[in-house]
């Protein structure tokens, strides 16, 4: 799940989702938004990939790779708590 100091919300003024952290604003792309919306602190990366692969009728291996890449990147920034 997202770290306690990170907030993920929709911004009306920019008409897009934003990830807010200290001194940082990230505007995630639609794929990242779909992943982040499923980060509820319960779902595993595997189950998120299952869900996304089914929802978008996409190959699971590619979806899982996308998930891992994005989540590892956020973890390195301290924005994800395991």
């Amino acid at each position, binding site marked *: 799940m997202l770290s*306690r100091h990170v907030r993920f919300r929709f*911004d009306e003024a920019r008409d897009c989702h934003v990830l807010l952290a*200290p*001194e940082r604003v990230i505007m995630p792309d639609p794929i990242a938004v779909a992943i982040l919306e499923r980060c509820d602190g319960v779902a595993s990366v595997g189950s998120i990939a299952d869900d996304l692969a089914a929802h978008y009728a996409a190959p699971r291996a590619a979806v899982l790779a996308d998930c891992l890449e994005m989540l590892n990147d956020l973890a390195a*920034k*301290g924005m994800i708590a395991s």
Partner: protein
Amino acid sequence: MLMELTHRCPLKCPYCSNPLALDRARDELDTATWKRVISEAAAIGTLQGHFSGGEPMVRDDLAELVGHARAEGLYTNLITSAVLLTASRMTELAQAGLDHVQISFQGADAEVADPIAGLRNAHAKKIAAAKLVREAGLALTVNAVVHRRNLHQLPAMIELAVEAGAQRIEVAHVQYYGWALKNRAALIPTRAQLDEATIIVEAARTRLNGILTIDYVVPDYYASRPKACMGGWARRFFNITPSGKMLPCHAAETLPGLRFERVTDRSVGEIWADSPAFEVYRGTAWMAPPCQGCPRAEIDWGGCRCQALALTGDAAATDPACGLSPNHALMAALAVAESTAAIDDFAYRMIS
């Protein structure tokens, strides 16, 4: 949005980013006005609200303002010296929905830190306050402002951040405006000290990957390209002073000939949209060569206007931190001369 709620502060740091002419308590905006400012900022798409000062905790209405900002959807950050942080105020702020706390440290121990802060027992209070922040479950950033009097403690300051349970440390070399410009000769490190600090930061980043995020701000007196000051003038940042002036950067009042409007006269959205002081250096049209036509014009936005003024006498000149500036050699020479001279005494921050 940076909200300087007050210029009052128990510390006297000689590199304070506040202007030399400090606002007095009687001139501060009241609670209702700050709430209106926060709502107006949220309405134009402001994403983050940084509560700063001075020391923002001297305001009794801090938690009320944090709660209001949170209700308006802003990411709320408290930038504090933390010497006034008690358990009850921490609880009050956490309940108001505060997202994040930044505590400044002046060194790694009281012996070095307290004389820089100009306040006895400040360091011990900060260590205790950091614990309160973590116990309240809030995220913590350690702000470590570094200069020639404390750079030898940089490794220990990074350790302090880890031990305090911080997720992030900002290692920021002093930027020379306001009080810091006045104290530049007492603060500026040598090139060798800077290079050593950079090596220490790089090594710590590798070692602490996933444990501590390290943001690093270098002193641009030794740079070859300028920083994109404020991300470009009036592009993504504004500051409200204690008495309600709206500024494109916190040092902007040093620039002559600009009139900064007050949020008590016009709304945040109106000032942001068309105030002449915001328009004057917005974008690239104002630039002269070598900035005009430079492929980096929209990367660094000409660097810093206040620094250009302070060092060249012309606020519209290319920031002398840029190697293409005709004044670049002068800036480097200043840094070498001052950093290798005997250390000056500090002129401590105070209301005159």
